């Protein structure tokens, strides 16, 4: 792929949250690219920094969180140097975002219609009639058949799945090039989750949009993503195509995550292999590799210094000292 296919480039991004108990390094010098028309998955447990990295792109980090280093480029433009007005224009029209809890994101005192048209008024010079018809059209395209009726409803009158569809409609109204979905289906039932994921796939294909899909669910990654970054403790542990990461996982953490969930064959009663230990304490992350206290292959060097990013194959990287070692096969399998 050429450079022009890159929609979003994130280089060595670091995000910190200063607090009275110390500084939390939520994101530590991570890099990833999002190409046009692809779905980039970011998977990790709570506190891994997966959301913070995406919020940084939108410059939506809650105070006192701030970007302390790195570079975010959207179509070559430096997002971090945007003025307030430029940001206002950028958010919503270039990048749309949907959040985990739709009920908390929709304003309870305005109708669905008012919230959809508001987005259009903010970004375009548009007449009321055009805004309403564009909104109705958009609701239809996210699978709400009874769109005119829904426009007059309030958020609490809709089910969770419907609310999330409305959120997606709002995010898509200005035709963004990138959609950030932050745990967009986590609060939904499994049948509704499947509908929303299929809907996202469909709008992505129809519009040639890119998606950053943030989740903790490995099953969803397999379903929707083209490439995936596995995050732990603010670092990207492994990055590659979905097939690379699922069929040739190269980092012990990825291997651990895959073994920890029930298999595709649900009748298998084999014991799950958990990842032992507890996630890092954000105020005192371990020295060396952040995963070493929970890693079954931990070596001396892992306790002392951070592993470099290792090129496993084309487009597949992992940060682990085992990969620097010739006996990595023996290590991972043994």
């Amino acid at each position, binding site marked *: 792929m050429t450079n022009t296919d890159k929609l979003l480039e994130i280089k060595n991004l670091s995000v910190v949250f200063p607090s009275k108990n110390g500084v939390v390094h939520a994101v530590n010098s991570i890099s990833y690219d999002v190409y046009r028309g692809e779905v980039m998955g970011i998977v990790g*447990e*709570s506190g891994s920094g997966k959301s913070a990295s995406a919020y940084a792109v939108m410059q939506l980090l809650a105070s006192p969180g701030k970007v302390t280093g790195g570079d975010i480029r959207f179509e070559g433009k430096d997002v971090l140097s945007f003025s307030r007005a430029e940001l206002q224009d950028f958010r919503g029209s270039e990048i749309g975002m949907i959040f985990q809890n739709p009920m908390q994101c929709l304003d309870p005192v305005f109708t669905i219609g008012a919230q959809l048209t508001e987005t259009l008024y903010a970004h375009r010079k548009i007449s009321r009639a055009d805004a309403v018809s564009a909104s109705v059209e958009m609701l239809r395209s996210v*699978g*709400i*058949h*009874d769109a005119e009726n829904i426009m007059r409803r309030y958020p609490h*009158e*809709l*089910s*969770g*799945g*419907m609310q999330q*569809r409305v959120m997606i409609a709002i995010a898509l109204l200005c035709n963004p090039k990138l959609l950030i979905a932050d745990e967009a289906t986590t609060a939904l*039932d*499994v*049948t*509704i*989750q*499947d*509908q929303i*994921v*299929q809907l996202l796939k469909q709008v992505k294909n129809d519009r040639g949009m890119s998606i950053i899909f943030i989740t*903790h*669910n*490995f*099953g*969803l*990654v*397999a*379903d929707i993503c083209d490439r995936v970054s596995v995050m732990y403790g603010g670092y990207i542990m492994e990055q590659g195509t*979905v*097939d690379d990461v*699922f*069929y040739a996982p190269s980092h012990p953490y990825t291997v*651990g*995550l*895959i073994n*920890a*969930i*029930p*298999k*595709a064959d*649900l*009748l298998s*009663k084999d*014991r*799950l*292999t*958990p*990842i*032992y230990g*507890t*996630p890092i304490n954000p105020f005192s992350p371990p020295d060396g590799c952040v995963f070493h206290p*929970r890693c079954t292959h931990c070596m001396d060097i892992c306790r002392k210094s951070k592993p470099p990013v290792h090129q496993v194959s084309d487009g597949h990287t992992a940060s682990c000292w085992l990969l620097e070692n010739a006996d990595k096969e023996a290590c991972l399998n043994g």
Partner: protein
Amino acid sequence: MDSTDLIYIENLKKAFPSKDVRGNKTLVRAVDDVTLSIKRGECLGLVGESGSGKTTLGRTILRLVEPDSGKIYFDGTDITGINMKPYRSKMQIIFQNPSGSLDPRMRVFNIISEGIKATRRGMTKSEMSAAVFKLLDAVGLNSTDAYRYPHEFSGGQQQRIGIARALAVNPEFIVCDEPVSALDVSYQSQIINLLEDLQEQLGFTYLFISHDLSVVMHISDRIGVMYLGKIVELGSCEDIFLRPAHPYTKALLSAIPVPDPKISRQREHKVTSFDDTPAGIKNGGCSYCALCSYATAECAKAAPENREIATGHFCACHLA
């Protein structure tokens, strides 16, 4: 009911008063005429979406929620309308939200020993400590953890404390109400393994409630699928996974994300026409018929009976 059943419930009903959009009074039938048996030593899984009544069913069996009608038998004794005190120690519950279900102002020692004090009087202090330490050890915590407060633990460890508290009174039957839903993936498998080990060692009977079919499938012997207050299908894991008979079970199965990209790509996703689920059941027809792609005229008129379609495999569908 036969002698192998530890729990047997018959025509259990529980409805909550509610209001619809226009402010008219309605009833939400959380548990609607459920008959179910749980054999001694088995793990019965209960799946369904939010609002299907699975949690209410679990709590009604323990009489934490009083049923409107129906009978609950524990080990052959009808426990509806009697003083539950002698039964509390035999039936326990593990809650979904570990931080919300532990008193933040109590140390772990007191959280765990409270149940022992209530049920076994006359224990000396050293016997009590020994009992608490043994429980902590059983759930994989250190004895020094006994003197810490719940907020000092991670979510997975808090859930272990919740399990230790349930075990403290030597129960026979435990309702696990979404015990892993609030936990991170790496903790989920730790807790599932722990529950399986404890069952093997101590012979518990579980009612395992979850919305995650893959977790339920992993831990359970039999599975009940709930939809709007009714158990629409009940059978062994093989029955449910390989021979699902109810359209809702089929929809659930096809919606589970499969952690395997190749299988996932080949999978056909049923494109269901999407309209808001009717919360109440209107004309006494099948509650699923509005969403069911196989629905016939009959489905809208009469609610289907729960029938045994194969040995031990029950389904409430006209078409099964």
